[in-house]
């Protein structure tokens, strides 16, 4: 299996000298082609920051992020062509409220990939159809339910034909009934062989879908293992404690 994404010794901290807060502390992680990796851990453990660093939305302080063996975190590198290859979906959807669903999806293909409008729209309609959203093409984001908005956001990222998808707690803002429809979309992507890194609080889903689960605490990957091992026989006491708290809250 070839390595798609390789994170090596990444460090990241926020704030100035005196109140420096380390959010990623020597993080290393390899994601193989077609692999699905889930990041779990409490809020503030660094999951979202790690995803934002991979997409170059946040600069890192030290270390390397390799995509297909090429360091994309090199200072001074033009981030735009790299971001084109990496799809990202956010917790709060980040759809553009002034554009219709169709326009949201075709913006990237037409402006970034310079595809002609008709072609981009046809491709977008096909994707929308696949996720049973075809009748929403003309609607505006605010007219959709949260689940539909998040599915549109996923379609928008997929329309760029990314090689890697980053999903940042994509179900955290949804009510339990709507979580299912979004998770189904992610299952479909896995079936099609998309390489994915997800930050999630849905432990059951993480267990079902991932090839590798990483437990983060205070910016450190404390434990990473295949799901059956991490969820049934965690090695670290911190992982055990976290999972016990999750079970106690009825979320596993």
């Amino acid at each position, binding site marked *: 299996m070839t390595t798609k994404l390789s994170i090596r010794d990444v460090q990241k901290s926020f704030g100035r000298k005196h109140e420096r807060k380390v959010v990623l502390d020597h993080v290393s992680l390899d994601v193989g082609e077609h692999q699905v990796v889930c990041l779990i851990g409490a809020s503030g453990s660094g999951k979202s920051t790690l995803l*934002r660093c991979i*997409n170059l*939305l946040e600069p890192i302080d030290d270390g390397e992020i390799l995509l297909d063996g090429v360091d994309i975190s090199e200072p001074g590198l033009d*981030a*735009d*062509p790299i*971001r*084109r290859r*990496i*799809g*990202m979906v*956010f917790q*709060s959807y*980040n*759809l*553009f*409220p*002034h554009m219709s669903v169709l326009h949201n999806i075709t*913006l*990237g293909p037409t*402006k*970034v990939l310079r595809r002609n409008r008709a072609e981009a729209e046809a491709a977008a309609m096909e994707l929308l159809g696949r996720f049973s959203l075809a009748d929403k093409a*003309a*609607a*505006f984001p*605010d*007219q*959709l339910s949260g689940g539909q908005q998040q599915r549109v956001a996923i379609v*928008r*990222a997929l329309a*760029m034909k990314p090689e890697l998808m980053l999903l940042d707690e994509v179900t955290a803002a949804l009510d339990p009934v709507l979580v299912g429809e979004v998770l189904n979309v992610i299952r479909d992507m896995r079936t099609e062989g998309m390489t994915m890194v997800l930050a999630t609080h849905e432990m059951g889903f993480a267990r079902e879908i991932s090839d590798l689960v990483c437990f983060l605490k205070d910016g450190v990957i404390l434990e990473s293992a295949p799901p059956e091992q991490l969820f049934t026989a965690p090695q670290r006491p911190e992982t055990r404690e976290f999972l016990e708290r999750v079970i106690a809250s009825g979320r596993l």
Partner: protein
Amino acid sequence: MTELDEGAGTVSAPSRVPGALTRREEWLRRRRRRSTTVALVSTVLTFGVLFVVVTNSSGWPKVKEIFFNAERFKEDFPELLGYLWVDVKLFLQCAPLIVVWGMVIALCRNTRNPVLFPLRVFAAVYTDFFRGVPVILTIYLVGFGIPKLGLLEGEFHFLWFGGSWTSPYLWGPIALVLAYSAYVAEVFRAGIESVHESQRAGARSLGLSQRQTLRHVVLPQAVRRVIPPLMNDFLSLQKDVALLSILGIIEVFRRASSIKDLTGNFTPIVAAAVIFLALTIPETRLVDWYTARQRKRTGGSVIA
């Protein structure tokens, strides 16, 4: 009270005539009708009494003669109306230039490129200066000062505009554009900054460049958001066009005040006020209509 007593004793039967009102709906309707009547009577009474008191006071005939002289109004109003076009035309010449120049200034203030840092400084100084100085002072400086330099002679021709290089019809509007674009730039800047960072993140994650993000994602939302406050600025621009009269431009207010000087009667000034109101009140309604339409288009109910 008798209606309530009637209702209190009877427990309404579940059988309902379709289309008939329930006991509660009927009560609500009765109450609504009563408050409408009360509001109407109270309003008519209040204004009636006010009218009677004012028109019967000892000073009223004098006030009526000086401010509300019917004959003068009949004579002056149509004449002033003839000058309305001058105000509207000046406004229409200034408004588009203010939007464009204001946007340029706002974008200058938002540049992050270090090469363009001088532009940022310029934009900051520009807005501070023109927002801090009374508009009439700017008009005076530009309108009287620049022609005095005598740098430009003869005539200018630009599209369908033309005239003397020293004309107040040239420098007056320029002064207004300079002053108002500072306000408008600040409104645009506030709009740009009000677009949430997550929108930028969404656009950049698709691979859009900084410029494309600004053009397709940030600006359209910013502009839509600031249209109501912007319309407010344009409302005061419509009124401030009258300030150009100090340069000798003959428009509604200028003409009204010369009639006042001739007759010693303030009715033409009141007539001018009526004309400005007839211009600005529809403009405010236009803003309301636009905001309501915008809300309907992007939010709330689902289109099937």
